[in-house]
């Protein structure tokens, strides 16, 4: 078990270092010099002296006036403090990037976590039920394939159009109505949920299809394995055999959950953009459009850390469920 966690922790540490290093490298070595772009955007004057001062200001802001190795160490130093210093946003000057990210994160987590967990749970149940039951399989499987092939963007657009425009029963855009002030009242919370429902549903549905297909195939595979045949030869009731098959099929699906995070995050960005939902996805698009590199990179780091944390939680759950990892045998490879 120690070895298992040791390997995982090493990979995550290396990933974090890679992400931070990438973040540090990109503005310095990519074509298109972001500082020139920001100077060009920020300068309201053509006076060369003023532009030079602006450039010097940005360079000291980036910490570009010291040797490279020192810049790199300084970068880590600024990240290591609490709250981490990710710079000042140019899009929403003078808010700090950390503040903006922490303000938007609850909306994204509120969408993502329920969508991921519920779609995983319902999809697995659905897939397990469909396995080897002809009638159910013939409806669940095609539907799941359509759902999983649908781009997140498009389903979000369809939901927006059907629920918000054609039927007109759901609000379109924003996290809550403009005339409300966030408060712990029933009126505000119901409004919040009302705005949350459609983006959640579209994320949930696309992810659902994939889990159902995966679980169906895994359960079929398990039902054909030797232990299932042996159990049925002993006269065990089908219910019991299916229960064991389901348990064994769960393990790859848990590993799959970790791998799927990146995909659903991608879908979430597009969904938030469609619904104008004030989470990290919308923030990242605003950062791109206003070429706010501080903000963009701050969100990047935040998302990477979130993904690593969730991966770690999933690893712990895996160890809890799969006894082989506890006894030191290799159940899940790193």
């Amino acid at each position, binding site marked *: 078990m120690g070895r298992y966690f040791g390997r995982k922790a*090493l*990979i*995550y540490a290396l*990933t974090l270092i*890679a992400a931070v290093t*990438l973040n540090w490298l990109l*503005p310095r070595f*990519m*074509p*298109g010099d972001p500082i020139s772009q920001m100077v060009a955007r920020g300068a309201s004057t053509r006076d060369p002296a003023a532009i030079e001062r602006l450039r010097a200001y940005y360079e000291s802001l980036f910490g570009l006036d010291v040797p490279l190795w020192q810049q790199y160490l300084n970068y880590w130093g600024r990240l290591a403090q609490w709250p981490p210093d990710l710079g000042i946003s140019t899009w929403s000057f003078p808010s700090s990037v950390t503040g903006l990210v922490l303000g938007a994160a609850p909306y994204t987590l509120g969408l993502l976590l329920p969508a991921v967990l519920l779609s995983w749970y319902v999809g697995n149940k659905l897939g397990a039920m469909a396995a080897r039951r002809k009638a159910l399989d013939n409806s669940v499987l095609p539907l799941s394939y359509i759902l*999983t*092939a649908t*781009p997140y*963007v*498009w389903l979000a*657009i*369809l939901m*927006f*159009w059907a629920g918000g*425009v*054609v039927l007109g029963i759901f609000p379109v855009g924003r996290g809550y109505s403009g005339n409300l002030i966030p408060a712990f009242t029933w009126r505000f919370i119901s409004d919040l949920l009302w705005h949350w429902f459609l983006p959640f549903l579209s994320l949930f549905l*696309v*992810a659902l299809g*994939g889990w159902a*297909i*995966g679980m169906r*195939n*895994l359960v079929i*595979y398990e039902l054909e394995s030797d232990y299932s045949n042996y159990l049925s030869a002993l006269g065990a009731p089908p219910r019991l055999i299916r229960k064991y098959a389901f348990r064994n099929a769960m393990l*790859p699906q848990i590993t*799959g959950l970790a*791998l*799927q*995070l*990146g*995909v659903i*995050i*991608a*879908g979430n*960005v*597009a969904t938030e*953009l*469609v619904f104008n939902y004030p989470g990290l996805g919308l923030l*990242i*698009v605003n950062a*791109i459009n206003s070429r706010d*590199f501080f903000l*963009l*990179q701050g*969100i*990047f780091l935040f*998302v*990477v850390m979130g*993904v*690593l944390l969730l991966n770690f939680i999933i690893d712990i759950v895996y160890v809890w469920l799969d006894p082989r990892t506890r006894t030191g045998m*290799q*159940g*899940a*490879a*790193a």
Partner: protein
Amino acid sequence: MTEIKDTSASPGPDQTGAPAGPTAGIATDAAAVESAAGVGAGSDVVPARRRFETLYFALRNAKVVGGLSVLLLFVLFGAIGPLFTDFGPRQRQVGPRNGAPNAENWLGTTSLGQDVFTQMAYGVRASFYVGIGAALVAGLIGMLIGFVAGYRGGLIDELLMAFTNIVLVLPVFVVLIVLNAYLGQRSLWIQALVIGVFSWPWVARAVRAQTFSLRNRDFVDLARLSGVGTLNIIRREIAPNMASYLVMVFVLLFAGAVLLAVLLDFIGFGPRDSVSLGWMLDQARQNSAIIYGFWWWFIPPGAAITAITGAAYITNVGLDEVFNPKLREM
């Protein structure tokens, strides 16, 4: 068994909802390699007959035939669709603004009076370019790393797999966003390259696991004893035995890349001088087509993407059944 469990989850859930993969993972890991490597090592006559057999079963498999037909239909549409229109994809004022479908503009027009049908034809073409390009890049990198790691083993394997796992954990889409923001390049080929460079990890892991199980077979030992070099062994002895699996990997990579490209284009990294399906959706959103209900502008691009990726997934399942006799339902 641990090796099989290892890959089982990876082929699927990698990208944009591809858990068609677990089939590919389990079925091929366990059985396809068995059948391909085990049976194929027979006499000289067998491979030719087996190829014929594969084709026979492929043509009898409704999923393969159906999926490939849909894909072929879209390839044709992308290839000759532009011949049916007199307009350029970005040419403005070729019809009324926001016109509904009619005899002149078959799929209606946009807010700038651009022809939606023309944009669709060019957009489908772009999707295939990016999908195939990215799948080639990712497949090549993944195979190279997987083969070398699985065949050489030891420290090289450890290092390559650590690298693979790092790229695997990184949220691809956010990395692509940051890269794109700095690159500022908006050509289809750059997009294909960038998507491909970050889509290979699950391929590497799957290929490695399979190579692992193949490398100690007798025919590989024989080649090694005869003094054949590593790369030649991989190319001539190992890769052919995984050909069926690699075809399926390519199909899944293609579908995943198409979906990723749509997302990238939608959030503002679409091509600057050509059109793509994701860019069309982006334009529709920016011009409030959804709120005004101009359905002809945002329904066709999404439907086309769903059909293309769906057909690719179905083809993949069908191919799995063709290559893996255990799964055939005759």
